[in-house]
C-alpha cells in the first residue's frame, strides 16, 4: 500500500517535471497544476537503463568466455561507451542490467575506467531465452519515471538532447534514434569468405511529423512490403528508409513499462514490443467497448489488455490538446487524435554511431577508433595507456591498453593492442586487433586480423584476413589467408595451405 502510494506520487512528480519543458501554451495552462504538485517534485525527469545482459551471439569468433559488454573497444570495455554517453548528458545514476554470473566481472572492469555515473546493477538470471523485453519486465519496479533504454553496444558521440526534446515536445510515448548506417562498409571481414549480409531495418517515417509508421527487419518480409492503407491515408507521404541504423536508444514513457509488464508473452523489445507499440498508435478509445466487454467471454482481462488503459491521458490533457495553438496539420486535430505516439529522430549526418553487435563492426570500430577518438570522447581520455610500454617508433593511429608491451623495430598501424599483450620486435601489424594477453613473436606480418585472447602467434607467421580464436597457437612460419583458426572448431585447422 505504502509502495503504491509512493509510486503514485513520484509519477506525478515526474509528470510535472516533464510539463515544465512543454511549449508555452501548455505550460500556462498547466500552471495551477504545477503549483499544486511542485512540492513533491523529484530531481530526475528520466531514468536511464543500459541493457548489458546480451550474450553476443553474433560475435562468436572474438568473444571467448567474457560477456559481450566487456569486449575491448580501444582502451575501454564496450559498455563504457554508453555509460560515458549518459554521463555526458548529466545522468548521475544508471541502471545496468547484467547477467547474474557476469556482474562481478563487469563491476571490476568498470572500476578501472573513469566514469562519473553511479551504477545500479540489476541482475537477470542466466537464462538463454531471456530477451530484452524480459529484462525490462524484470526491473519493472525500479522504473519510477519516464526512462531511457540504451543498449550496451552503442558507440556514439551523438547528442541525445534533440531526441529527448522531441519526446517532450510531442508528449510522445516513445522516441528512438536513428543513425546513418555504413560505418563498417569499407572494412573487410576477416576469416573465410562468407556472404556478409547486413541486417537491415525497414523504417517508415512520416515526412512532416517524424511519426514512426512501422519498423521491422527486412529479413522478416519476403518479396513484398505490405503497407496498410491507413498508414498512408491521412498523411499522404511516407518516407521509407532501408539504410538507417536503429541506435537502440529509446526514450519511453513510464506507462509503457506498465504495459510491457502486462504483455508477458512478449520477449524481445526491438523485435516484438516496438512494432507492437507502433501499431497501437492507431488504437482508438472505442465507445462501444464498454458494453461489449460485459457480453463477451473473458471480459475482465480485455480491458486490462487494452493499451489505452495504460496511457496517462487525462481529460485535462485532452482539453489542452484541443485548445492548444500547436497543431501540425491544418485540417486535422493534432496527431489525428492518437494518444500513443512514437517518433523517430535522425542523428545529424556527421554524428558517429556504431552498434558493435557483430564481428565486422567490432573490427571496424577498433580500427577506426584512433581516427575518430577526438570527436568521440574528446581529449580527456588518452589512447595510449600510461601503463603501456611502447618502444616502437613507426606507429600510426594505434591504441594501446594498459600493460601492453610493444617492442622496438616494429611497424604498427591502425591497430588496437589489448592489455598485457606482447608484440616482439620485427613485426608488422596493420588494421588488426591484438586482444588481451596475446603474444606476437618475432618476424610476423599481420594484416586485417583479429588475434583472440591469449592467442599466440609464433615467429615468422604471415596472416592476412584471419580470425585467430582465443588461446589458439599459430605455429611457426604459418602463412594463412582468409581463415578462421580456433580451438573450438577443430576441423578448421586441417585446411592450412
Amino acid at each position, binding site marked *: 500500500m505504502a509502495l503504491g502510494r509512493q509510486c503514485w506520487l513520484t509519477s506525478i512528480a515526474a509528470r510535472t517535471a516533464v510539463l515544465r519543458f512543454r511549449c508555452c501554451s501548455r505550460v500556462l495552462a498547466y500552471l495551477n497544476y504545477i503549483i499544486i504538485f511542485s512540492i513533491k517534485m523529484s530531481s530526475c525527469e528520466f531514468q536511464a537503463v543500459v541493457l548489458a545482459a546480451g550474450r553476443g551471439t553474433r560475435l562468436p569468433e572474438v568473444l571467448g568466455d567474457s560477456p559481450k559488454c566487456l569486449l575491448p573497444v580501444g582502451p575501454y570495455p564496450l559498455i563504457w561507451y554508453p555509460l560515458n554517453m549518459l554521463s555526458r548528458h548529466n545522468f548521475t545514476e544508471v541502471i545496468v542490467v547484467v547477467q547474474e554470473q557476469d556482474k562481478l566481472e563487469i563491476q571490476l572492469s568498470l572500476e578501472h575506467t573513469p566514469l562519473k555515473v553511479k551504477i545500479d546493477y540489476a541482475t537477470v538470471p542466466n537464462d538463454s531465452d531471456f530477451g530484452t523485453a524480459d529484462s525490462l519486465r524484470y526491473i519493472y519496479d525500479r522504473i519510477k519515471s519516464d526512462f531511457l533504454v540504451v543498449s550496451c553496444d552503442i558507440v556514439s558521440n551523438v547528442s541525445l538532447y534533440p531526441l529527448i526534446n522531441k519526446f517532450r515536445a510531442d508528449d510522445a510515448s516513445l522516441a528512438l534514434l536513428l543513425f546513418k548506417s555504413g560505418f563498417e562498409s569499407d572494412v573487410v571481414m576477416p576469416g573465410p569468405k562468407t556472404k556478409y549480409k547486413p541486417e*537491415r531495418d*525497414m523504417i*517508415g517515417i512520416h*515526412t512532416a511529423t517524424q511519426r514512426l509508421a512501422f519498423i521491422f527487419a*527486412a529479413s522478416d*518480409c*519476403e*518479396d*513484398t*512490403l*505490405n*503497407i*496498410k*492503407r*491507413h498508414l*498512408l*491515408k*491521412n*498523411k*499522404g*507521404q*511516407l*518516407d*521509407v*528508409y*532501408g*539504410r538507417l541504423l536503429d541506435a537502440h536508444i529509446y526514450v519511453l514513457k513510464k506507462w509503457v513499462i506498465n504495459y510491457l509488464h502486462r504483455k508477458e508473452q512478449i520477449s524481445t523489445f526491438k523485435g516484438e514490443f516496438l512494432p507492437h507499440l507502433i*501499431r497501437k498508435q*492507431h*488504437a*482508438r478509445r*472505442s465507445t*462501444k467497448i464498454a458494453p461489449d466487454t460485459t457480453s463477451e467471454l473473458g471480459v475482465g482481462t480485455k480491458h486490462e489488455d487494452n493499451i489505452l488503459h495504460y496511457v496517462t491521458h487525462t481529460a485535462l490533457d485532452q482539453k489542452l490538446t484541443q485548445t492548444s495553438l500547436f497543431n501540425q496539420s491544418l*485540417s*486535422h486535430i493534432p496527431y*489525428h487524435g492518437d494518444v500513443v505516439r512514437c517518433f523517430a529522430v535522425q542523428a545529424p549526418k556527421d554524428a558517429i554511431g556504431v552498434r558493435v553487435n557483430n564481428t565486422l563492426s567490432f573490427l571496424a570500430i577498433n580500427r577506426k577508433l584512433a581516427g575518430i577518438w577526438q570527436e568521440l570522447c574528446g581529449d580527456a581520455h588518452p589512447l595510449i595507456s600510461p601503463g603501456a610500454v611502447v618502444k616502437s617508433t613507426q606507429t600510426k593511429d594505434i591504441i594501446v591498453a594498459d600493460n601492453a608491451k610493444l617492442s622496438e623495430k616494429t611497424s604498427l598501424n591502425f591497430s588496437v593492442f589489448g592489455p598485457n599483450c606482447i608484440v616482439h620486435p620485427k613485426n608488422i601489424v596493420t588494421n588488426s586487433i591484438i586482444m588481451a594477453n596475446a603474444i606476437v613473436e618475432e618476424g610476423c606480418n599481420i594484416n586485417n586480423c583479429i588475434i583472440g585472447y591469449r592467442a599466440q602467434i609464433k615467429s615468422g607467421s604471415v596472416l592476412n584476413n584471419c580470425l585467430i580464436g582465443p588461446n589458439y597457437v599459430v605455429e611457426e612460419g604459418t602463412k594463412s589467408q582468409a581463415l578462421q583458426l580456433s580451438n573450438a572448431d577443430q576441423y578448421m585447422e586441417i585446411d592450412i595451405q
Partner: protein
Amino acid sequence: MSQFQKEIVQAVLIADNNVWNFKPLSDEGSTALLPLVNVSMLDYALIALNRSGVEEVFVYASLYLQDIRDHIKRGIAAYASWSFKMTVHVIGGEGCRCFGDAMRDLDAKALIRGNFILLGADTVTNADLRPVLEQHKRTAKFDKGTAATLVFKECASGAERTGNELLIAVDKQNTRLVYHQRLRANHKESRYHIPLDVFLSNSCVTLHHNLLDPQIAIGSPSMLSLFSDNFDFQTRDDFVRGLLINEELLDSRIYVTLLPPAQYAHKVNNWLSYQLVSRDIISRWAHPLVPDMGVYNLQQQYVFYKDNIYKSHEANVSKVALQENVVIQAGSHVDVGTTISCSVIGANCRIGKNCQLNNVFLMANVIIHDNCQLRHCVIGSTSVVHENCNISAGCVLGAKCVLPANTKLANTLVTSSPSTQRTEEQEQVELEAIGPSAYIVNDLTTGDPDDSDAEDTLLPQTTTLCIPKMCELQQLANVDSDCSSSSEDEDEDESRAATPLPDDTNIFLSEVIDSLSRGFREKSNPDFLILEINSSRYAYNMSLKEVNFNVVKAVFGMESIIEPPNNNVLAAINAAFKQLGPVVSNYIKSEDAMLDCLKALEDICEENELVREKISQVVHYLYDKDFVSEDAIHKWYSQLDVQEHATLRQSLAKLVDWLNQSSEDDDDGDDDDE
C-alpha cells in the same frame, strides 16, 4: 541542335484517351471536343500549353480527325486565346489504335526535335510547365538516361476515386520514380504490396499516396524511340511499368515532379471526373481558366454574380432560379418555378416550369419540359426531355435523344438511334428502346473486359466493367475521411484483436484457405487438395464438424471471393465451385455436414457484405449444385434466431417459400404418377 535557330518549345496533345468512358457521347463526336463548362476540352489543353510558353503543338487524334481540324481552324479564325504565338498541327489517323501507336507514329514522322511537353487533350490545368521543363532539362543533363518527367498533383486522399489516383514511390534524393501503381477506381485496398527491392536498393524512398495523375509529362526525345523499340507499350502506364521493370536493360529512368499547391491540374477521363472538374472550374480553383475570363474567345460571355453564378446577358432567366455554382450560356431560357444548382446550361437551352436541376450538364439546344427532376446527369445537344421526367444518378443522354413524358431513369446511358453504337466487327446488339429516339446503351455489354485488350478503342487497361458515373460527392472531404478512418481503425483493431490469437482453428482455416487458393489458381487435382486439407486437419486435431465448417469458410475466404472482380460475387463463387466443388462435396455429404456448411455460410454473411447481399442466390446455387439438400436448408432456416438473424431470415424467406412450393409440386407430381 540549336545551332541554326532557337530551340522552340514543342508539345504533343493526345486526344481520344478514354473514348469508352464517355459513352454514348463519344459515339457522336470527338471526346476532345466535348464541352466542359461550355468550352471544349481541347481548348483547355491548348490554353494550358499556350500559357506555358509552348510554340508548336501537335494534336494527335485517331477519331473524328476532320472535326478537330475544323475546330482548330475555327479557333484560329475567331482568335481563340491559344492561337497567339502558337502553331497547332493536327495529325493522326484511323490506323492509330492506342497511345503507344501515337508515340510511335510521332517518332516515325520525326516532328519532335527536343524535350517536349506531353499532355492529354482531356487535361485541365492552370499550371505553368516552364519550370518543370527546365528541371527536366537539368535532370537530363545530369542523367543521360532520363526518359521522362511525370507531373503529379497532390490531392485529398479521402476523395472520390476517378481512376487517376496513384501510389508511387520516389527516391527522396533525386526524385526518381521507383514504383508506380494506379489505384483502382471503386475499390479500396486495405493494404498495399510493394516489392521489397524498391526499398532495399534505395536508401530513402518516399511513398506518395495522395497523388492525382493529370496526364502531364515532359518527354525526352528518347521517350519516343523507347516506344518504337518496345512495340508492346500501349499506354503511358505500360511505358512507365516497362521502364521500371527493365530499368537497366533500357537504361532509362523516369523522374517525378509535383505541382506546387496553388496550381490546379486534373484529367477528365470519365463522367465522374467531368463532374468534379466542372465543379472546380465553376468554383474558380482553376483560375484563370474560369468561365468569366473569356477563356476561349477573349470576350466577356458571362456576368459573374455571387455564389459562383455565371450568367450570359442574353440568357433569359430570373436570378432566383439560380442557386449556386451555375453557368448559363447565351440564348437559354428558364421558366418560373425552376431551381438550378451546381449545373452548366449550354447555349439556346429551354427549361420549362417547376423543374429541379442539380448537377446537370446540358449541352447546346436542349429542351427540358415542365416538372422534370434532373440530378447528376448529362444531356447531349438538341435532346428533348418531356414532362414529368425523373433522371438521376449518372444518366447520360446522347445527342438528339427524345425522352417521352413520365420517364424515370437512373444510372443509364441513352442514345438517340440504335445504330450509332460502334460495334465494328461485333454483331449488332439489340438496344432496349424507351422511346422513338431513345435507346438504352448497356455499358456492361459494350465493353467486355476480355475483349478490351483486343478492341480497337483507346481505353486504358484499368477501366472496369462499368463506366464510372456521376454521383453525389462527399461535400466535406475532411468529415468523410475522419469518419471513415475511425471506422476503419476500429476494423483494424478488430482484425488485430483477432490476429494475436492464432489458435489452432484459425491456423487451420488459414492453411485451408492457402491450399484452396493455390489449388484454384493452379487448377490442381482436387484429390491432392483433399489430401492436403486432411493432413492439416490431423496436424491441428480438428474434429470432422470443424473441418466441414472451415472448409466451406475457406472457400468463401479465398481472395477471389472476398474481392471479386467487378464485385460480381456470384460469378466468383461459381468459378470457385467449378474448380473446388469436388473438394467441398468430399466433406459435405451427410445432412449434419450440410448444416455445418450452412452455418459456415451464416458466419461468412457477417464478414462478407457482398455475400450477404446475395445470400439467397448463394444458397440457391448450393442447392442447385446438390451441395446442400432441401431438408438441410429447412432445418437451418428454422434454427436461425428470429431476432439476431432477422435480415438473413428475411432474405432467405423467399427461397424457403419457393422450396416449400416446389416440394409440394413434387409431391403432387408423385401423386399424379401414382
